[in-house]
């Protein structure tokens, strides 16, 4: 659905893991951008009704991109830059995430 409009050849590639699966990203990507380009459509489910959600505003305002990043829940994937070896998973029921 999404594709890279411009890619600076000097920016190195990093690998992150989303739900255990390796995803190639550019070091300047945010987690949300990297996942959208990789074709991930649902990055969390809502805590009450369990509906799927994806990053929306991409600028830290809408809180729809909350994910578990390196074991920590409720992180805004659109504001977190990727890093080599980072592990990312869908955020489901938050209170279970914190246990």
């Amino acid at each position, binding site marked *: 659905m999404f594709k890279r409009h411009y890619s600076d050849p000097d920016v190195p590639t990093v690998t992150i893991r989303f739900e255990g699966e390796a995803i190639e990203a550019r070091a300047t990507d945010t987690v949300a951008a990297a996942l959208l380009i990789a074709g991930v459509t649902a990055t969390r489910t809502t805590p009450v009704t369990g509906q799927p959600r994806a990053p929306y505003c991409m600028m830290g305002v809408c809180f729809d991109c909350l994910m578990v990043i390196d074991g920590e829940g409720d992180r805004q994937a659109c504001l977190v830059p990727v890093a080599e070896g980072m592990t990312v998973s869908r955020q489901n029921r*938050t209170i*279970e995430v914190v246990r």
Partner: protein
Amino acid sequence: MSISTTADAVIVGGGLVGVAIAYGLVQRGLDVVILDEGDVAFRASRGNFGLVWVQSKGVGMPAYAQWTRRSSDLWPEFAETVREDTGIDLQFSRNGGYQFCLSEKEFQDRVRMMDTLVEASGGTFTYEMMRRGELADRLPELGPDVVGASFSPHDGHVNSLRLFRAMHVGFQKHGGTYTPNSRVTDITRDGDGFRIATEKGDIYRSARVVLAAGNATRELAPMVGLEAPVSPQKGQILVTAKTSPFLDCPTAQLRQTGEGSVLIGDSKEESGFEDMTSPETIKMLADRAVATFPALQKVRVVRSWAALRVMTPDGFPVYGQSETHPGAFVACLHSGVTLAAAHVGPMADAIAGGGLPPSFESFSADRFNV
């Protein structure tokens, strides 16, 4: 430019108390104008916690315990009627409510307070004291510091912003006129009724005037021979990120909303007309919430705010009608959410009809002049 408007009733104050009474009056066929301040006002109604709360209300004033209970009992049908009239779901539920005790002393104090309420209610108020073991069966997230809790089946909660909006929508749907940026500067007698002037220089004439302007009522009440000795009491609230449902009924200090956020509150500070949050109070609220439900430790706080309660010296409402200015009423109180159903119903009935019933005498501000 000044305008002159005539109405059956002018409500001074567009907060939850004023608009609930106004909504009740328009449903009874009155032509009603609400005069509200602008955004400079201290808006208690936009900082609410959202409890529809019975336990702990009215120790020392049985009439208040009974009035609160009456509103609580009206709430289920009220919420349904509001939904039908305005299309707004208030997210009201009444599964009972807890007040947690974090020490044996708190537990014993709570027992005594609950017994006083049973007495004040003539035996209609019911509660249970629950020990930790019994509670933990119902609330698996409960922390080890919780000794027990009081539980009352009369308690509930609601989305108070939806309630506030629904009151305004319903009021205007039935022909009411909401007029913001209209601080009232003067109220004088005008034949059998009143002449009300705003800071813009607009003039309103009406047979009845209801003062429901929160903390500003203190200055307005003497204009119609009434008193409203209220002053601000600051409360601070924290809101967490949305979490999966773990608490199906509210507690006095925290509740989970229909969307999954957890609201944490119930701080009390006498700080005058100042509504800033402070790190000390926020830490106190957060610490107490985590002691109650340790899982909250890692749930993020996404917002906090402070608002000013409207408090009388004894904490109970002031309702009154003027003897020197017949047709002038005052309604000045904390708990505009809990009492909304009573304000739309019996309170509006009284104001539209022959005035406050004799049972309201104990709410008069005369009680402070003994």
